[in-house]
């Protein structure tokens, strides 16, 4: 149902459109970063690094718009949740884009070194992260709380692939110490992609909160076990 005061609806719409734009931009950035890694495309990587400021500008817009709506409209109930969630989601999107830009930056180094085999698994991890980000943003913008909740499970898949990749990279480094430099960069990029999954999960939880007014209660069990690799915990 629309508000009696139409300009309030217009302001909330501006907020939503700002998030959609920002989310779309972050998706593009992440997709381009993965493509730059896969094709060893340094020009594309440089463009990703340069365009990160556009996502930052998107976040500033959301921040300003949010403060304005809070001050002038004193929103309550679902309006309040929409405004507060927008503020937090924009922060999550900014982090996602930042991690994508960092992956692009590392690809510049990788492109000057001989290719290493685990790159294929890394690309797979990147595609999973990208898909998750897309689906989560869709569920947020379409107010689909149930879908958002179900997407949290997908982050688990991402964590599993990350843990496997971690082991794979370790194996390569042990076999051939000359791969340690590229593999270290790969390791950081993999960690970035895994973090992107966490930010996507946060957006899914905010989508659920925005629609239902409830926070996602139960703590998701973490199955990224890479923190324990190398330790004898038996």
């Amino acid at each position, binding site marked *: 149902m629309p508000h009696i005061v139409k300009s309030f609806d217009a302001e909330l719409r501006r907020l939503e459109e700002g998030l959609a734009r920002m989310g779309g931009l972050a998706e593009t950035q992440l997709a381009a970063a993965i493509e730059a890694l896969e094709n060893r495309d340094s020009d594309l990587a440089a463009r990703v690094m340069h365009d990160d400021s556009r996502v930052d500008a998107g976040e500033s817009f959301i921040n300003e718009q949010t403060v304005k709506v809070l001050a002038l409209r004193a929103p309550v109930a679902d309006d*309040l949740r929409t405004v507060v969630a927008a503020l937090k989601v924009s922060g999550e999107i900014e982090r996602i884009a930042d991690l994508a830009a960092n992956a692009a930056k590392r690809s510049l180094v990788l492109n000057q070194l001989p290719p290493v085999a685990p790159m294929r698994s890394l690309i797979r991890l990147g595609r999973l992260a990208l898909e998750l980000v897309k689906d989560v943003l869709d569920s947020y913008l379409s107010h689909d709380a149930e879908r958002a909740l179900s997407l949290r499970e997908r982050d688990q898949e991402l964590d599993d692939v990350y843990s496997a990749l971690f082991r794979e990279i370790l194996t390569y480094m042990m076999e051939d110490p000359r791969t340690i430099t590229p593999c270290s960069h790969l390791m950081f990029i993999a960690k970035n992609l895994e973090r992107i999954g966490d930010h996507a999960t946060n957006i899914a939880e905010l989508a659920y909160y925005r629609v239902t*007014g409830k926070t996602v209660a139960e703590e998701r069990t973490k199955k990224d076990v890479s923190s324990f690799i190398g330790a004898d915990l038996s």
Partner: protein
Amino acid sequence: MPDAKMTTRRLAVHYGGKLALKEVDLDIPAGDVTALIGPSGCGKSTFLRCLNRMNDTVEGARVSGEVTLDGKPVYGPDGIDPVLLRARVGMVFQRPNPFPKSIYDNVAFGPRLHGLAAEGEEMDRVVRSGLERAGLWAEVKDRLHEKGTGISGGQQQRLCIARAIAIEPEVILMDEPCSALDPIATAKIEELIDELRENFTIVIVTHSMQQAARVSQFTAFFHLGQIIEVGATEQVFTAPRNELTQGYITGRFG
């Protein structure tokens, strides 16, 4: 919810042939502020007036159902005597309505009526205490014998609160007490409500959503003579359970 100071069960009010309130059940928690919100004509003021039998004086008003104060019936053959009831359940109205008497006599009016204090030093103490608790003492202590109608609107409203609390009621009903006041006077009344909560149970009808959010611990939303939703104020304003409540408080109604 904490213990109920007052309760209503199947409380209904007819004005002539018109049903203004339809079987309302509500518990008024002791020592808290309960805000009644809802569009004009929703029954919230009618409900408020049932709590101290103010509707008795309204031509053609018929009240049915139960109201209790500390578990004792307010209406019916076993009901509390209305004069005593109104001493225990005081009221503050929308427009400040001090009597055309001195500030002193305004506050002393109730204690005199109910014989609560002897003239002289004892009454002076009662008047001072009422004005102090209403946050008005410092402003009027040098002109206690000037007319109560001669002070500002915000001061008049605090004088009415002083008059209401001078007889030590247990419950204070407020019917849009700030709607005729500027934001500073409103803030002073809201601060006062927060302080009074320690000693009194307060029920406030307000058209200002933000005021309900600021001053109350519990909020009840009335619509077409019924309670649609009642809950902790924080819950009602962040995640209302009912669509109608959400529509009203966010300004999407109608």
